[in-house]
């Protein structure tokens, strides 16, 4: 039933060419914008380009944002159209539904980050020491995080309008505090502490490890593991919001 759900979710997306195009192309286009933004910077010799730092982090942040939005709207539609209630009268297990969703959107996220990473590498010569495979891996974990948070947040929204409003609440603080704009060690204590418990921070940390080391480091694996733990935790919370019975 998990795979039936995955096939169904992908089937719904397949009919929606515009969304597929937006998911696959937009991150690459934004990455292009970031590249040209820093095109004319003057750097002391041997100093890494801003694009190598910011562009790399964007590769992980895009899938997170996009999948959060896509999932929370899709799941909300499922709740409001009555299909969720109907599904819950069938023998389907809640885990089948949640993991079915997570798997479907992870596949989309993998494609998305392959396109974006390929553009970063081959078009803009992204210069990092580690393997691009690990970059894609972190991007996919981020995407699944977005899916999990989207599934959870959809429970607290009654309309699609409300669902979109969760983005500034859930997504923007993580982007602000993840270490992209200001390095974490330069933040004041309160912000640094908050930043330390936000999941996106771990993925930025992992990307820094990938950028600075040719081989996978223990810190990177540790970050990835923490992210995986958070994703599972959020999925469990999301499953608690799926009630078979209303009071």
């Amino acid at each position, binding site marked *: 039933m998990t795979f039936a*759900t995955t*096939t169904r979710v992908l*089937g*719904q997306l397949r009919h929606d060419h515009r969304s597929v195009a937006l998911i696959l192309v937009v991150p690459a286009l934004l990455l292009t914008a970031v590249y040209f933004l820093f095109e004319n910077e003057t750097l002391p010799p041997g100093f890494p380009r801003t694009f190598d730092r910011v562009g790399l982090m964007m590769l992980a942040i895009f899938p997170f944002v996009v999948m959060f939005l896509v999932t929370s709207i899709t799941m909300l539609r499922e709740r409001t159209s009555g299909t969720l209630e*109907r*599904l819950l*009268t*069938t*023998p389907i297990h809640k885990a089948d539904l949640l993991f079915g969703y997570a798997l479907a959107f992870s596949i989309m996220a993998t494609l998305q980050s392959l396109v974006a990473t390929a553009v970063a590498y081959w078009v803009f010569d992204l210069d990092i020491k580690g393997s691009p495979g690990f970059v894609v891996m972190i991007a996919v974990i981020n995407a699944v995080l977005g899916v999990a948070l989207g599934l959870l947040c959809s429970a607290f929204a009654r309309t699609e309008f409300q669902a979109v409003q969760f983005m500034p609440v859930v997504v923007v603080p993580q982007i602000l505090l993840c270490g992209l704009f200001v390095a974490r060690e330069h933040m004041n204590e309160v912000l640094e502490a908050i930043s330390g418990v936000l999941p996106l921070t771990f993925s930025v940390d992992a990307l820094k490890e990938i950028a600075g080391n040719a081989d996978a480091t223990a810190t990177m694996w540790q970050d990835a593991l923490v992210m995986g733990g958070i994703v599972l935790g959020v999925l469990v919370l999301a499953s608690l919001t799926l009630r078979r019975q209303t009071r």
Partner: protein
Amino acid sequence: MTPLPAAIEATRLQVSRSRSKILKGLDFTVDAGRITGLLGPSGSGKTTLMRAIVGVQRISQGNLTVLGRPAGSAPLRHDVGYVTQGASVYSDLSVQANVRYFGAMHGATAADTAEAIAAVGLESLARHKAADLSGGQFSRVSLACALVAHPKLLVLDEPTVGLDPVLRAELWERFAAMAAAGTTLLVSSHVMEEASHCSSLLLLRDGLLLAQLTPTELAGRGRSEDLERAFLTIIKAADRGQEESQVTS
């Protein structure tokens, strides 16, 4: 013929939602292998009762047994089909993909999918997106998604709304055939003329059961062959009874 065991049994069934009582103590049984009609004005609690039977609405008091088990228990999910009032299907999927997906929950085969689509007369539109269908076709997709699981009990909330007379007649024929094959059907409607297709009727009003009777008895008690008029007569009589009891108390 030996009497079949009851498919649904309610005793002093009460359901409250956000502090207001929707169902105020119902006692009734629904025979297996028959079509039972659930009739009543809108707001009388028909949908709430159906949701309680399929197990998505929590019961506040009393008992509700479905196919020999408490309503909402896990094994019932294999045997109870539910067609909601608004068609709950994925409008961005094809007819076939919708039926196949809901069938997958019950381990249905490709043949089951084709059979369910044929049963609602949508073979020629199987590959069309549900959103491109007309209102009547759309609601038949929803029905096919329930039929694919071959439920023992099929609960249908206003299945004939928005259908033309020809389709309505066809659908009632299908229901009769299903009942003959042993399926229990509970069908809600507010179109009284459809009551004649049912072997038993539950008349619901304001969360209370006015009567459980056959269409013939309804015509007799309401003193009219026109079931709509008969129903109105019974309701008015009940209203007068209520007023009188309020005056005397």
